């Protein structure tokens, strides 16, 4: 299909088109904080009380529509156990966004989240958009990590921050949307320019070139 590439160019009829961007997003965090559940909620609108533990990594995609842009997320959901940590870099390599998840009922997972942020800041793309998600907000009665503490940490480090609940769906779509909003507009366009990819016409016959 030789039309593939040329199809990306502006269409002559000038019809209004939605820009389609594709971003690689990785979820990181301690075991059992709800990474897979967040993804499942976001992608399929479902919640399983007992999401099977992720071995290695899982891969899913979801598309969100902003005003003038359609953002397709390629989501890499990683395993939380430390032994699988050595495989993580192959998933976050080239990622334009990351959600670092902790469990608000477990202080240790917050500490671990900070380490992941550090590792991303050190190893991942400098323009990566990082969001911090304090998950299991439906269990507020068992809260061990204060909202303000996490918010202050996120502010210091320039992270998006929300408390989420995969179970009640609170803030789940919102956090992905916030990332989607921040991505194309990221300063200097580093991530946008290098990262966002136009979708092939085979997949999105009506799409135009990248949003940047």
């Amino acid at each position, binding site marked *: 299909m030789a039309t593939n590439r040329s199809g990306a160019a502006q269409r002559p009829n000038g019809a209004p088109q939605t820009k389609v961007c594709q971003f*690689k997003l990785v979820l990181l965090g301690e*075991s059992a904080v709800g990474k897979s559940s967040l993804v499942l909620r976001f992608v399929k609108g479902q919640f399983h009380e007992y999401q099977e533990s992720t071995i290695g990594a899982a891969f899913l995609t979801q598309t969100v529509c902003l005003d003038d842009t359609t953002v397709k997320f390629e989501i890499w959901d990683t395993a939380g156990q430390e032994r699988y940590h050595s495989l993580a870099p*192959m998933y976050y390599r080239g990622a334009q966004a990351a959600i670092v998840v902790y469990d608000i009922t477990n202080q240790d997972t917050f500490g671990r989240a900070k380490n992941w942020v550090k590792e991303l800041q050190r190893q991942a793309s*400098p323009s990566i958009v990082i969001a911090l998600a304090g998950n299991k907000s439906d269990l507020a009665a068992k809260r061990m990590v204060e909202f303000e503490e996490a918010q202050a940490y996120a502010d210091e480090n320039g992270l998006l921050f929300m408390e989420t609940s995969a179970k009640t769906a609170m803030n789940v779509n919102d956090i992905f949307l916030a990332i989607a909003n921040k991505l194309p507009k990221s300063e200097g366009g580093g991530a946008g320019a290098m990262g966002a990819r136009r979708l092939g016409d085979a997949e999105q016959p009506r799409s135009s070139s990248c949003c940047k």
Partner: protein
Amino acid sequence: MNEEALLARASEERERIFQRYERGRENLVGQIDPWEDPEFEEYHKTDRYGFIHDERLPQKTGVQKVNIEVEREKKWVKMLNNWDLQTTKEKLHRRIYKGIPNSLRIKVWCKLMEVNRIKSANPGKFQEMLKLAKLWSTDVRQIDSDVNRQFREHQFYRERYSEKQCSLFNVLCAYSMYNSEVGYCQGMSGLAGVLLMYMDEEDAFWALAVLLSDKKYAMHGLYIEGFPKLTRFLEHHDKILTKFMPKLKHHFDKFGLDAILYSLKWFFVCFVERVPFSLCLRVWDIYLLDGERVVTAMAYTILKLHKKAIMKLNDMDLIVNYIQVKLHKDFGFEDDIVIYHLERSMEELKRAKLDYPGPPPPNELPKRQLGTFVEPDKKSKIGQRAENFSETEKQARATVILRREKAAMELQELRVSQSDTVSEHSGVAGGIRCDDSVSALGSRRSLADTSVTSTADLSVFSSGRSHAPDNSLDTHSNVSDDATGSDGSGICGLSIQRAPSTTHSTPRATPHPPSVSPMSDDVVRIHVTYNPLAASPSHLHPISPSKYKAYNNEEHHKPVSLGFYTSNGATNLHSDNRIRIQVPSEELLTPVVDSGRIITPRFIESHSEIYDLK
């Protein structure tokens, strides 16, 4: 918190978790959070293996099938009573491939794994390990969180702190002490969970021990740091695909789909939660009889049976979902048919001498004596994570990355060779054979040749600061742009050929032409992931849509400055057979991999290194 406080806290946590399992469900009335223990309607939704389904089961097992199983049971009972007879050994293979009657599974499995032998040779060991675990195990928290989500749709594991949940916890904790090199690794809860559906606690513990350390199964190497056996089996799996289903392999490569993404559970837990449970049991029956070969053959069989369907899926997401989720829910073939094909696959692979990746090398076997107590170090007691990757982990990582590079390279070569063939034999039907075994073999051959000639393949990876579109790891990222085959495989390759007339320093300008036989040339190919830091200034600025297009269409093929350079240049290279790699910043000090010896990745130690290309 100081170290002592952290130690005390970890120890308290361990005891608290242990206590809950010791007390069990009956004694925890009012102490189990509702969210931990939802109530489910079990009525008419439980299948014959004990799994509870969301909806009414579609149909009961046919009367005829039940009758067959009853008949088989009689034969099996007889056989079990005469287990050591020669006639049993003769019948065993055929009967196991037909399926062990579910009611006798426990007995047969124990016989096949010789559980009683190892158990009676180690009296009291299990209890001893369990006691030690209560005092020392550093895996308790992880085990607890996995017990809380393993097979929760099964009636045994349904209720929090049910008897079987407690058994699962005990088996895994005891094992974490018994085999201190493995401890507990996610995945093992699946193995132990299945065993406990059929066995009591102590038998399941020993069966788990057999699965990990008996050389017939040797799962130890799957679960230790760096997962060496996984790497080895995945490579073998790729080899099988390349030989028997090159089109499918090509299809996977096109989407950057490494086998590790879809097949991990095949190898780690022998297909648990990846195929329907009834089929999984049939595969386990055979696995326990014939060992490791079965996993390799089953992996091949699954892809063989579903090749057509998978080839139609043009998205990594869809492919992974199909293989991992759809096939678990509905395999689309009757169990007997799958087993028939599995047996054929085993024969087929045996004929091709690809049935077995070989016995485990020493690094996949237990080094410490099993069942001896090793006190955990402080870091793991506190639950502190390691700051840096160990050498083994770095190697594991590099190997996976390299496999992707290699796949991308093969894909690229395949594409080039296809386009070559097209230009040379345009119109000749044989030129662009759809049966890609021909072209894929070609690409495989050229790679194989690479390793036996003096060609050195050095792959340098920048340390994660690379992006699409030229990120070779991110091969799938180009695919949607590029489903049809120009060289979007994502390799930013620098090709320096020693022949004086062909000294290019142009990445990708001339992809290594397969028409030039690597046998006759000394070719240095350096594949470098795209590094935005070292890129030309224009790349540091936002790219407008039009530029992006240009980038896609043209610059894709143009040189970009790389995260390293060869200071001696091609001329010098020509004269002294050396290549000097200088890395501009410490952040780029990452693996140099000589794919002539793929398994032994190296790391650049300093900013500048010289390689002899002899």
